[in-house]
């Protein structure tokens, strides 16, 4: 972009310095966490940041002595199903708002939008009673069913579906294509990027659930990883920092990898949803 004008050397050094400084502050909690996960707890509690016994033994302890792998598996199951069904339900309702004409559509859409104003956190009390009466407590289903759809997802996909050339619908109607086929054959493939974005978003949102699972799960067989870490931390009466940091690392490394791979979709999709 600025081929002709090279900024003066001092400015370049300033830029690099700023970059390094910012990177340092972002990285320091990671680095400390990972580093201490390699140290023996005895050395950490003395306040030492260096040890002659660097090893992966904290990881071994975390995997063998705690249900951390089970927690990860639970989270994976919960997040995966929430994501899959959310994609289906949100895309269906978004389709209805764009391609099906019916009385009161706009009103209904505004009602959908209005739910974005209602935080789930403010409704946990009756929702707890509902899932208890449905017999869902302490089960995967309790962490999936209330989140099968989302107003945000519907809104985002609606914006994406509106980008689909109307001529396509006209043509398909002349061809006698049913809503189902148009939805499955045209609309979904056309909005792949937005669907991927919503998938990533809903997967992460489900993965990060904290309050709801804490209230509705009571055993390690169903407890997701966020509450699992809380559990590990509260059981620890000795400051076993090495093991705790290792568990945190076990949890964060897979998500970091997934994120760096899926970064591109996430970014472009979210911007689309944001701007239009």
């Amino acid at each position, binding site marked *: *972009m600025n081929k002709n004008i090279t900024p003066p050397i001092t400015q370049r050094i300033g830029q690099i310095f700023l970059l390094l400084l*910012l990177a340092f502050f972002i990285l320091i909690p990671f680095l400390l966490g990972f580093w201490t996960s390699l140290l023996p707890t005895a050395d950490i509690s003395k306040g030492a940041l260096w040890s002659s016994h660097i090893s992966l033994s904290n990881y071994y302890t975390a995997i063998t002595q705690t249900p951390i792998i089970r927690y990860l598996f639970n989270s994976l199951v919960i997040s995966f199903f929430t994501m899959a069904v959310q994609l289906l339900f949100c895309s269906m309702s978004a389709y209805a708002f764009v391609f099906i004409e019916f009385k009161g559509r706009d009103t209904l859409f505004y009602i959908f939008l209005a*739910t974005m104003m209602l935080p789930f956190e403010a409704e946990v009390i009756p929702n707890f009673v509902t899932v208890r009466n449905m017999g869902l407590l302490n089960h995967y289903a309790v962490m999936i069913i209330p989140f*099968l759809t989302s*107003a945000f997802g519907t809104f985002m996909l609606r914006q994406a579906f509106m980008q689909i050339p109307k001529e396509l619908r006209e043509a398909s109607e002349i061809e006698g294509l049913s809503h189902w086929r148009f939805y499955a054959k045209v609309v979904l493939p056309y909005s792949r990027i937005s669907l991927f974005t919503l998938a990533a978003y809903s997967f992460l949102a489900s993965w990060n659930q904290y309050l709801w699972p804490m209230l509705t799960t009571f055993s390690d067989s169903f407890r997701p990883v*966020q509450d699992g870490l809380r559990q590990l931390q509260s059981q620890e009466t000795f400051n076993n920092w090495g093991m705790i940091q290792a568990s945190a690392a076990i949890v*964060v490394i897979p998500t970091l990898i997934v994120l760096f791979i899926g970064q591109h979709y996430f970014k472009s999709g979210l911007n689309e949803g944001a701007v239009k």
Partner: protein
Amino acid sequence: MDTQITNKNPQMRYKQRKEEKPLMATGLSYNKSKALRDRLYALIFLGPSLLVLIVFVFFPMFRTLYLSFFLTNNLGKPTVFIGFANYISLLSSSAYLHSLQATFIYVIAVSCLTLTLGLLLAQTASQKVRGISFFRTIFSGTMGVSVSVAAIFWLFIFNPSVGMLDQLANLLHLPAINWLTQPGWAMTAVVISTVWMNLGFTFLIFFGAIQSVPSTLYEAAQIEGVSKIYQFFHITLPMISPTLFFVSIITLIESFKSFGLIDLMTAGGPDNATNLLVYRIYQDAFLSGNYGLASTESVILALIIAFFTFIQFKVLEKRVNY
């Protein structure tokens, strides 16, 4: 008559839809059976989502409102109707007002810092320097960090006996700060942790937005000899204002709903300094079993969030530069 027109002339129908005017509403039903079929389709397509929203959003909304007018017994059942007494006792309780105040301070601090730092990161990462993609990856890194992981990382840093900051203070002969046991510092610690956790997401979105600003605008500015700072405020910011708007809403609302970091780091303490609204609801309902009062707190929280969402939608919508 109208039936024929619409059927034969797709262009016409298209126009009508564009105006967001449902055909039925005009009273000129073009084809009763098609309308009926479309309603059926609408029901099928919207049904699942509607059902979930009714059961888990609309019903609980009214139920919470209902519960907020009652005293609940030790089993959580509403027993005594007390009208607005819960609201009155909350709004006259210094502890609750303290929580409200703390929540606002937290939300404002977190939102401002997240937006400013997010912009700074995005702007810095937009430069053309060798190895910049490495920095971009780092900047977006905290997006993969969940609440409990972030809490563990930061708890270690703020730990009074083994923590980094304490050792650093020792080294520099500064008085050690009890980060999590002194009200002001505890809030600072929680804000820092939240902002850090938010930055990855914010950076990524801002960065994407800045990248999509047409480079011709900058080139023109360069020729005019306008300073970088001027360019940022007069080209970049206006061009990414829709994104700015989107991110500010998300950040604001998410901060109002903060719970995990509070639970893990301070448990609302010390002296309720970090007892934010959602944590208080949890405490009153799921620790003390005071469901009526907690419902009242929920209603207040919902009102606050609804208010801010609405204001932001309405006011900023007009200013945003599309």
